[in-house]
């Protein structure tokens, strides 16, 4: 049989349609499309994709099951390594992981592993939500309680794994809503909130307790949790204060951190203002600074809020952009104006303190720096200004400072990350940590992998 070189395309909303709504952009494979794509997998002996996956899912095995229409077997294989494939199937950078090393890449398109994962996960989520499937009975209930701090990808994965092992798990979330970055950070058009809500509801059915408005480190400390009868604590507190460049005018009205802008829109639903009480500026000419996924999310969100012109200002070239290729392509299709090799120097405001312009300078790439990326240098005399009425700074964040500042004895690294080993063990016995609070800003799948490893380490610790 001849090898099909081209991947089965995934249907998606057209650029013209989707910039007018917040609905998910890609629409997913149907059964026929999924099976056709799964059939392209050669089931090669080397399986480089498994090594390419941060959590080592047996990718060829789930694809084979899908191709044979044994969807239950396929999802079980996914779940063996990934608690939330409906989320990772959407937000994982597959093109830099499993799909990057796919042998089919030598012949044509790599297998669309993420799309196949998403197909199975959506099939499964529908089934579980309709109770068609009975949950695998949890292991015999253990007489020990574990507290999980934060309900983002690391926390919920750790909680789900511990619940499956029979522990009584309580997840403490500072916000009024569960899901962490999955709900405050990633926009609806990339990850529908209904998916996160359903997964969390199903975890509750599995016996996980969730408490909102409970910020560990303030109302309750880790020490108090341990005294209250929790035998172990997992800290997945995630992102903290946003980085700024430290240039003049960054505190002008209308200059947002991406964290604030996305939190207003995603978590607080400012796009539905005034039906919802939280406002957000709807700039006509918006500058987004940065080249990561958060910058793409911010730019595309600004567009959907009605911006006429969105500039994406990034100091290196497209090759160095940390954002997912797919998101960069979609941002371009939607009309985001990429101003590469450009760096902001200052924001200029009006008399009332509102941003009106950004002054930039052109950059050129020199020798590779410590990160391996070519370091940009300013080109003297190339300054120019762009008229804007809103700016969004998306250049990363520090780890959340609350637990580090309120937990005596917990070792912290120089930039504020909690010091932990590969299994999440911190300097305090019984306290584990994982996700962005340990690694600094990383991906959803890395955080989930850390949550899963810590769950195993916590089980080992409590049964030792």
């Amino acid at each position, binding site marked *: 049989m001849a090898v099909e070189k081209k991947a089965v395309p995934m249907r998606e909303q057209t650029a013209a349609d989707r910039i007018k709504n917040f609905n998910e952009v890609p629409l997913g494979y149907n059964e026929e499309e999924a099976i056709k794509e799964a059939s392209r997998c050669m089931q090669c002996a080397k399986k480089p994709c498994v090594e390419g996956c941060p959590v080592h899912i047996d990718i060829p095995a789930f694809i084979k099951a899908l191709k044979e229409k044994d969807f239950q077997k396929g999802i079980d294989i996914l779940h063996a390594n990934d608690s939330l494939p409906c989320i990772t199937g959407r937000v994982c950078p597959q093109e830099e992981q499993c799909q990057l090393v796919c042998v089919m890449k030598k012949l044509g398109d790599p297998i669309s592993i993420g799309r196949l994962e998403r197909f199975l996960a959506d099939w499964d989520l529908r089934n579980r939500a309709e109770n068609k499937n009975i949950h695998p009975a949890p292991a015999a209930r253990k007489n020990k309680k574990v507290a999980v701090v934060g309900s983002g990808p690391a926390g919920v994965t750790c909680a789900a794994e511990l619940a499956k092992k029979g522990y009584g798990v309580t997840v403490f979330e*500072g916000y009024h809503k569960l899901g962490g970055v999955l709900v405050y950070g990633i926009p609806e058009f990339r990850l529908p909130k209904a998916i996160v809500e359903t997964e969390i509801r199903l975890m509750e059915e599995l016996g996980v307790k969730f408490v909102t*408005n409970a910020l560990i480190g303030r109302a309750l400390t880790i020490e108090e949790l341990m005294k209250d009868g929790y035998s172990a604590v997992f800290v997945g507190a995630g992102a903290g204060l*946003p980085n700024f460049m*430290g240039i003049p005018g960054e505190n002008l009205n209308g200059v947002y951190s991406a964290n*604030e802008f996305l939190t207003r829109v995603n978590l607080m639903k400012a796009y539905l203002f005034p039906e919802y009480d939280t406002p957000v500026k709807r700039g006509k000419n918006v500058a987004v600074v940065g080249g990561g996924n958060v910058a793409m999310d911010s730019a595309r969100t600004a567009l959907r809020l009605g911006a006429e012109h969105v500039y994406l200002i990034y100091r290196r070239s497209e090759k160095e952009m940390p954002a997912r290729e797919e998101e960069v392509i979609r941002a371009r299709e939607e009309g985001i104006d990429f101003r590469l090799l450009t760096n902001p120097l200052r924001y200029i405001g009006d008399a009332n303190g509102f941003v009106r312009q950004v002054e930039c300078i052109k950059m050129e790439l020199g020798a590779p720096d410590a990160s391996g990326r070519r370091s940009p240098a300013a080109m003297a005399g190339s300054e120019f200004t762009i008229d804007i009425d809103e700016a969004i700074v998306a250049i990363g964040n520090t780890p959340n400072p*609350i637990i580090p500042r309120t937990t005596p004895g917990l070792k912290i690294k120089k930039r504020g990350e909690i010091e932990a080993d590969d299994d999440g063990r911190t300097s305090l016995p019984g306290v584990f940590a994982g996700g962005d609070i340990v690694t600094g800003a990383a991906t959803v799948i890395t955080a989930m992998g850390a949550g899963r490893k810590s769950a195993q380490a916590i089980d080992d610790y409590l049964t030792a």
Partner: protein
Amino acid sequence: MFKILDTYELGPKMHYVLMDAPLIGRKAQAGQFVIVRVSEKGERVPLTIADYDRVKGTVTLVFQEAGKTTCVLGAMKKGDSLHDLLGPQGNPTEIENFGHAVVIGGGIGVAPVFPLARALKEKGNKVTSIIGYRSKDHIFWEDKMKAASDKLIIATNDGSYGTKGFVTDMLKGLMDSGEKIDIVYAIGPPVMMKAVCDMTRPAGLKTIVSLNSLMVCGMGMCGACRVSVNDKTKFTCMDGPDFDGHQVDFALLMKRLETYKPEECTCQGTAGSDPKRKNGV
């Protein structure tokens, strides 16, 4: 859900709300705040903790109607519930035995000044409190402030009660009297805090202010609450809310507080509650 145990009007558009909040009441200290959300569609709004009871597990909120949340909260009744209540947030005020502490509260700012004065007195300070109101109608907690202070000075803008004038006039009188002052705390509208700082700066008199910047998360993530202190960007929710008043860029704070003025009006227009509440807010 968080239950309102008691509520009443303290003055024109000023309200007292006693919240059932055992976890917050147990830990709250002077200088800290809570984040409230009145409904499923509500905004996250910071309100300073005006009092707390560790045994009963309550916190007291005192606020002025200023936006939709405070209008809705002001219209709520005993037995009603808030959708969300998070706290205690922010760093507690650092309190030592300084000697003679002067605490200054302007308008609704008298509420957070009360637990501060009480805590300073408990630490052995001589506490002089200067509290200022628009007029006699706006006065609240005179008795509580009297009990928490060694000396209480009341000023009203129109002279309808106490001494006519601003809190800065009273402070000037105190400073001119030659009495030694070791530290000043000022809580109130930014314009008042700025005026106090402008007066104490030349005298080298340490002045702590509590900033009321806009917030969304209130827990060290979003950066909405950034202020400039000593020309460095600080985050009110994590680094404050107390700052050295002589280093605060009040002009920036005041401009940032105006960010959503147009939107606030839109929201008011759709609030649809008591129509007379829309006026002058």
